[in-house]
């Protein structure tokens, strides 16, 4: 199980839970698992999120491995200039 930290707006969507647990070995599994377990997150997941895994930023790479003890934080989708 991976602990996933949610930002405030996502937490409010699922009854103020700021952390959830998901069975996932990769980023793709994580995003899919979240959408399935927490349908209220789906609109935001569809709009796009960025994910910090152990302090580094990821956007789309489904097969990025996630370890059981990885720190996983969902972030609003990031864009640069």
């Amino acid at each position, binding site marked *: 199980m991976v602990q996933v930290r949610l930002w405030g707006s996502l937490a409010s969507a699922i009854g103020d839970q700021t952390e959830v647990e998901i069975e996932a070995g990769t980023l793709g599994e994580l995003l899919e698992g979240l959408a399935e377990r927490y349908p209220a997150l789906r609109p935001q997941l569809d709009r796009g999120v960025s994910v910090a895994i*152990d302090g*580094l930023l990821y956007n789309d790479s489904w097969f990025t491995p996630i370890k059981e003890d990885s720190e996983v*934080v*969902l*972030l609003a989708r990031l*864009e640069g*200039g």
Partner: protein
Amino acid sequence: MALGSKRDTSKRDFKIVGTRPLRPDGIDKVTGRARYGADMSAPGMLVGLVLRSPHAHARIKSIDTSRAEALTGVHAVVTRADFGDVEDAATADTLDNCMAGAKALYDGHAVAAVAAASDAVAKQALKLIEVEYEPLPHVTDVDEAMAPGAPVLHEGRTDETVPQGMSANVISRCQFGHGDIEAGLAKADRVLKRTYRTEATHQGYIEPHACLASMGPDGQADLWCCTQGHYMVRNTCAAILGLEQGKLRVTASEIGGGFGGKTTVFLEPVALMLSKKAGRPVKMVMTRSEVLRATGPTASSSIDVRIGMTKDGRITAGFAELRYQGGAYPGSPVNMGAMSAFAPYDLENVRTIGWDVVTNRPRQAAYRAPGAPIAAFAVESAIDELAKGFGLDPLEVRLKNAAREGTRASYGPTYRAIGLEATLRTAKDHPHWTAPLGPNQGRGVACGFWFNFGGDTCVSLNITPDGTVTLTEGNPDIGGSRASMSMMAAEELGIPYDKVRTVIADTGSLGQNEVTDGSRVTFAVGLATIEAARAAKREMCRRAAKVWGIDEEAVVWEDGAAKPSGPNAGEFPPMTLEEIAAIASNTGGPIAGHFEVNAEGAGVSFATHMVDTEVDPETGAVRVLRYTVFQDAGKAVHPDYVEGQFQGGAAQGIGWALNEEYIYGEDGTLQNPGFLDYRIPVASDLPMIDTVILEIPNPGHPYGVRGVGETSIVPPLAAVANSVSDASGVRLTDLPLSPPKVLAAIQSR
């Protein structure tokens, strides 16, 4: 000449990376030979011009183009009716921004376009297009747009995060942070509560948008344009015009500045449509006034901050509510402002709330660290005011609260190795910090943070028969990146810098490349370049092994040559890259390395800026006297261009702090659409900008590189405001700090 000093904290010895060779495109750019967006022409080319809305908000009841079409010399007229529907919401907004649909949403919004044999005919044709508008009430201010009863731009765009009962102009709400704000504030010796406001500013690139489009009836098309990302242009135009991506080849011209403003399309789909209808190539070039009225400025904002501090300078809680208007469509960078606002600090209790709001202004486009400078202005001003109030050293207070490796960031994750503390300590030890100040002079500091990104990247590295190297990459060179890429390739291959030529490919020559944004190029394209060079090295080792008749595992690459290594490899003299290249046909064919990746894992970066100003008590005019940037670059590949990024970001931030602003009249039209009234800093406004490059390697990059292009615009707004406050004794909370505002504040002191 010493241009700033440099501290090396990385271990690896580099031969080329970290030196300052001449950029390969330098001669073209100092002789006028380099071709930018407006410098290309084609046989039979027509001139394309756009008709723009004079209204801030109006329903378009009808458009009659028949008289324009009948004019001799006019070859095509285009309106929204020529374009089909687009499914993806963001792309549909882009189309609507390029050519208005049911409503004109801001002063300058495109409503029709013509292609004609000459500029004069095209201008005349624009006058013959009859648009019947029904003017609607408009709103350009973020707070007014949020108020119930404000004129509404779009119905039904609000998402599920927005509470019921708010204006439909409020698109979304986001919230970040951890801990308990009220409990934290209760522990403070003082809680400061302030509202800050910033005005929209434009990226201000000197080159207006320009393109040359040629599209045939078979759907094949070619497009030349100045852009930060020609793959983005291809994909967006293909979606808007219903083309297959592979049929549209986009070539990026040299680009005359972008800063985020050229990460979307404005003219390109229109030029393609005109070309298709006219059956001729069409060139379109914006005027400066069009650039300011109709291309993306950044957001304007209003921000409430509450920060609690103990009298020894510890921040007990930080709260900010940020309201950003991003023009006529959803997508202001408020989420990034909300995530970055308190990012430099290690806080137990922190919360930010962000509101994305639409108004009757041009659609915002990314501007260097989008959203972050505004948020930093508010938070860094408040921290400074608290520190000053307790009589504390503002650098010490920042050091006391600084985020470090292991700190949980205000936006969620735990930091790995970061350089904020190093920038603060270096700033404190720098002679600038203790230099004497005269009357009416002051000194300010501020910190800044930016994420940096990676993204899709694709490069190909080819070894020519004579042993020189061509590196083909897909990101326009906006500030010397050809040089950095050539350096990384040369470093990895162990050959001289001038043996590598870097070429920016068109969209037909490489796979997908993300736009030049998010400070990603040196990081991501650099990473792909290094990997492509490694692939080429492996192949060259294989070829040498074949020639020597030994195992390929027994061959290593060192100093630009293959060498046998290990106990059973045998004795062979090293085979150089040139030697291997010369016999490539005999050993298996041409040699190349390529690498394709979604380069994720970019590292964040931090900066501290220090600035001295002098405030004229008679006029309120502010003069910047001295400026020093301290920033972590991870690893500076070409220090000259890293310094250049630091200096350029600082200068833009100074302009934002002191002069630049979008001014709207009562009628919602832009009052200052020219460089005369929209005043960006000129040479005589600025001092030298000193730089100190720190190098705390990014663990996510083979050479430790972090993005450097954006962080440098984050601190200056606050640093300048803090300096002005130190100089004048008054605290201004609204940008820009224009002379009348400063004077009024001094007089009411």
